[in-house]
């Protein structure tokens, strides 16, 4: 196995941090955008960019509730995202075991 076989969508520092943080939540839970930003420490623009890529891949779900200043966006890992993350960690373990 080589590093090229690691899921390229996750194998990026910012997205790895996003997915690992979301995976630490119990299954079925979602986190608000400000709390996720606070936990990870990315700028809002940077976080939005990476979230969009993960959402396009079906790894996360974002849900917006409310309107205007009362609007709130929450983010959750989908089942496919959790599964992809598990495969990524397994692959990483295998790779490091072989190094």
């Amino acid at each position, binding site marked *: 196995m080589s590093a090229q076989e*690691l899921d390229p969508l996750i194998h990026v520092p*910012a997205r790895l941090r996003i997915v*690992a*943080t979301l995976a630490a*939540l*119990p299954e*079925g*839970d979602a986190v608000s955008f400000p709390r996720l930003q606070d936990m990870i420490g990315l700028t809002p623009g940077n976080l939005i960019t990476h979230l969009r890529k993960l959402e396009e891949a079906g790894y996360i779900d974002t849900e917006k509730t409310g309107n205007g200043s009362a609007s709130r966006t929450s983010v959750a890992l989908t089942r496919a995202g959790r599964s992809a993350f598990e495969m990524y960690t397994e692959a990483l373990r295998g790779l*490091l075991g072989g190094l």
Partner: protein
Amino acid sequence: MPTHNHTHEAVPDNGGELDPRDAAALLDQTTRRAERQLDLHPPVLMLVAALVVLIAYGAIWLSVRNQHPYTGPTLGALGVLYATLAAFGVLVAVVTRRAISGIGGRSSQRRRGEAIAFAVAWTSVYVFQGALHHAGASHAIAYGIYPAAAPLIIVGSAAAAYEAAKENWEWSGFACAAVVLACVGAFTGPETVWAVMGIGLATLLLARAASRIWLHG
């Protein structure tokens, strides 16, 4: 997963050249950090709980030792017990609020169910104490052995079963140890049981805090 002394600032953010070792270190660091931020029972809270238990049970023990015949804790000792528990309750609420801030979904519904079930268990402990008094049980039982040991036996058993159902063996083991402690402590009599419970429970909490730090960093 090996742990390197890297920080996330040390690796590129463009996905070009992320070394697998750096990825593993970043993953480990991020997971630990997230778990700490979401932790409802951080080790420091357990250290405070150990202190609370020592103060609360210690105050009761000081008020009942050398009582012949046994009459039960004084109002002053009960005041210390309830004041300490109230202060600890506020601390738990602050820690919980911070940990679950911005988190929604299935676990918040589960927490509400848990809170109701455990409130019923705690209430039943004290309603049953009233029944013991009503039935003419001695002060040694109704105001000594029972209130010192029964809460841990009843609520601890419920917690042990609940955590075992979730395969949370660390908490289930802790709850089982508390139940065993209470059962053994009950044999030491209405005065000594307060000291045994205070020291024993504080020791268990310290051990639990140490094991969490050791296992989870």
